[in-house]
């Protein structure tokens, strides 16, 4: 396989699509390719769209994209849906609601299955963001799986996180107390054409006020209403995202957040690399399976054994 990176940087859609597949598959060459991609990243604004199943995330993504396209901004979309824990297969249906974005050469949509990852994204979603960023997309919109409470990986991936709620889906604060209600830079109450929308708006506004009373925050989370299917409120939504982006830049928070993200990412790469190398060494000679036999037979215990393994490992060197 040829090196896809130069082609991606030159704007080849085919090369980008193939590179994303390699990264999703954790192909042995993907780290090398991502290394070459990295210097070209950091320009795009990453917008996360999260919320319960069926609240209108895909429909909103499509309309937001339309607003950005009117401004001549290029857009990459990553739409994540769950893989079945039983078969490993996945039905990726977000594209159905993204018909408008479809057919525009400056919009690239990629559906991703979670492949067992639990935080609302696929393991490789952050890497796919980098690929689209290096390709030159001005905006990258990431739609998470329909989340419950604690699938909050999106905050680690996005610069601005939009939490979408809708009336009539049991989306009350009570049902969303943990996790998801703590990550919003912006709340959107979608399906405002339905009854119960105003009550939900009030409920969320009260929550935001409480948040401010509990702890002073430099950013006050706006609560917006939209009717995505009728394209109502999407302009204002994009303007609110602009405000947040400006806030991030002017307050210096963007720099801080990106520093922290880079630290996290590098640390987890390091952990993976260490465990891969070390485990290869430990599992390579078959003695590990003998140890398991010993543990089962009560000749040894796992706690002491693990310490011993690590000690011998370092005394070797």
């Amino acid at each position, binding site marked *: 396989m040829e090196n896809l990176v130069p082609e991606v940087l030159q704007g080849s*859609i*085919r090369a980008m*699509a*193939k590179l*994303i*597949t390699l990264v*999703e*598959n*954790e*192909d*042995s060459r993907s780290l090398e390719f991502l290394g070459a991609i990295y210097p070209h990243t950091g320009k795009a604004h990453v917008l996360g769209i999260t919320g319960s199943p069926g609240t209108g995330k895909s429909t909103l993504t499509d309309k937001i994209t339309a607003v950005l396209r009117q401004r001549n901004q290029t857009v990459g979309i990553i739409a994540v849906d769950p*893989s*079945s824990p039983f*078969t*490993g*297969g*996945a*039905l*990726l*249906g977000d*594209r*159905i609601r993204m*018909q408008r974005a*479809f*057919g525009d050469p400056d919009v*690239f*949509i*990629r*559906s991703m*299955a979670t*492949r067992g990852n639990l935080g609302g994204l696929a393991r490789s979603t952050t890497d796919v963001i980098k690929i689209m960023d290096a390709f030159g997309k001005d905006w990258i919109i990431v739609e998470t799986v329909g989340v419950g409470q604690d699938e909050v990986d999106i905050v680690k991936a996005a610069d601005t996180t939009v939490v979408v709620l809708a009336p009539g889906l049991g989306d009350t604060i009570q049902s969303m107390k943990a996790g998801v209600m703590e990550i919003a830079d912006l709340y959107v109450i979608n399906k405002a054409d339905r009854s119960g929308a105003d009550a939900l708006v009030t409920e969320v506004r009260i929550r935001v006020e409480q948040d401010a009373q509990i702890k002073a925050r430099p950013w006050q989370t706006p609560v917006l209403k939209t009717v995505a299917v009728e394209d109502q409120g999407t302009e204002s939504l994009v303007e609110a995202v602009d405000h947040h982006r400006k806030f991030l830049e002017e307050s210096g928070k963007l720099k801080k957040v990106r520093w922290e993200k880079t630290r996290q990412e590098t640390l987890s790469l390091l952990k993976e690399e260490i465990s891969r190398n070390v485990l290869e060494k430990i599992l390579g000679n078959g003695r590990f399976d003998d140890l398991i036999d010993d543990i089962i037979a009560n000749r040894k215990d796992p706690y002491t054994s693990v310490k011993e393994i690590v000690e011998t490992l370092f005394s070797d060197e």
Partner: protein
Amino acid sequence: MTAKKRIKVIMAKPGLDGHDRGAKLLARVFAEAGMEVVYTGLRQTPEMIVEAALQEDADVVGLSSLSGVHNYFFPRVVELLKEKGLDNVLVVGGGIIPDEDVPGLKDAGVAAIFGPGTRTEDIVKFVEENIPNT
């Protein structure tokens, strides 16, 4: 190729045909066989289908037609795939397709046609055995 590779399928309904039971069924069948299936929904032009295949780096494009438009749409999809350099994508079709149309569709590059009553296991088996190794 790595162990983590999964077969990626685009399931599409070309044209204005509103019969989507077969396409939805097949999307589930492929997903339950462990594949990752992008269902693009109704009323797709060949251009839209091929663009989805390009962006998603699909291995398979599945076309479902029950309204008699297959002779135009299926070959057109194959042709556009070739134009985009996606020669390796396996194109399969199904729905209400008269026997006499099948040879022509195969000549045009559709790998196989499956009509009503086909056992879904056979469809899965065909796809698994015929996807190109990349």
